[in-house]
């Protein structure tokens, strides 16, 4: 039982590292694109049950968004991004608990390119101290080809159990919130929220607003990453303790947690957009 905090490398194109989380998220993106194309082909075909189901879902999303930000131009502006966040996160989370996601993979020698690339990317003293000794071991191991020197690399891994992924979508979310705020209340009102020199209290409130925007990035990314990675670890531990039947309720919990996290990610973006736009009005 080996649990790694960072995603494992499964290949590379030149110096571009392909991790197993990247492979998983690409599969999810392709799946969503195929679904979108199917829906597009059956457009306005009221006899198609699949199209009607998707239309029902989309109308449900729209009514939730309109319930929070109100009917009008802004609901249409933000609809696509919010629903994309929801669908992307939920299908990534659910894809991660498919059987075989963490168990199908290949064995490779303990130290080869992945560690070498990591060394180049983060040449801190600590990392090198940790990484150097196995590098020497593997060189002896490659000649001897001992089975102990091999390490298992899963081909797929839930995309949100990689902090890079959650950080990326958190950055997109926070920048999107700022963009919508600027578009709807204007540059002047937007900047006034952060830099207000009319009195000292408002000046410090502005500083706190800047900090709160930065904290949003971390809270978004760590919340999603922590939930999904902890869920993966929980499932791995459960499968190791009792391989049959016992993990099933935990898989149910993970499906529910995946749904809730997707809901929370999109809902929080929505609520932050609402508050950032409402700020300029009073």
């Amino acid at each position, binding site marked *: 039982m080996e649990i790694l*905090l960072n995603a494992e490398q499964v290949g590379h194109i030149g110096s571009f590292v392909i991790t197993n989380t990247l492979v998983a998220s690409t599969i999810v993106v392709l799946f969503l694109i195929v679904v979108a194309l199917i829906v597009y082909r059956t457009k306005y075909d009221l006899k198609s049950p699949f199209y009607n189901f998707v239309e029902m879902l989309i109308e449900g999303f729209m009514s939730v968004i309109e319930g929070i930000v109100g009917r009008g131009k802004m609901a249409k502006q933000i609809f696509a991004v919010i629903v994309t966040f929801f669908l992307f996160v939920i299908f990534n989370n659910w894809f991660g608990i498919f059987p075989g996601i963490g168990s199908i993979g290949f064995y490779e020698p303990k130290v080869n390119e992945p560690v070498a690339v990591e060394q180049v990317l983060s040449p801190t003293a600590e990392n090198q101290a940790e990484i150097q000794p196995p590098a020497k071991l593997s060189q002896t191991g490659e000649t001897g080809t001992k089975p102990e020197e091999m390490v298992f690399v899963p081909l797929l891994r839930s995309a949100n159990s990689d902090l890079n992924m959650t950080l990326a979508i958190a950055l997109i979310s926070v920048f999107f919130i700022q963009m919508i705020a600027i578009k709807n209340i204007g540059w002047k009102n937007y900047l006034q929220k952060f830099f207000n020199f009319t009195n000292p209290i408002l000046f410090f409130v502005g500083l706190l607003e800047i900090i709160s925007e930065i904290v949003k990035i971390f*809270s978004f990314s*760590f*919340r999603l990453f*922590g939930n999904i990675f*902890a869920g993966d670890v929980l499932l791995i531990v459960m499968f190791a303790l009792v391989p049959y039947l016992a993990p099933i309720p935990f898989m149910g919990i993970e499906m529910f947690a995946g749904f809730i996290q997707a809901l929370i990610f999109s*809902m*929080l973006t929505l609520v932050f957009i609402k508050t950032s736009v409402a700020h300029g009005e009073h």
Partner: protein
Amino acid sequence: MTKEIAIAITMAAAAIGPAMAIGWIASSAMNAIGRNPESAGKVQGNMILGLAFAEAIAIYALVVALVMKFV
């Protein structure tokens, strides 16, 4: 050994606050729904958001604990 105990204390101490917060939020939401059953949908949505904020604090500690364990 010291490291394992440190990890356990990190997680245990960090679970106290969010546990109380989650209980409080859910109990208040149940109160609100009991007083005004028509508002159940609205209360539920806000309750889940509040729960997410409370839970996030435990998740930060969990991330710290996981980093201590695996890095």
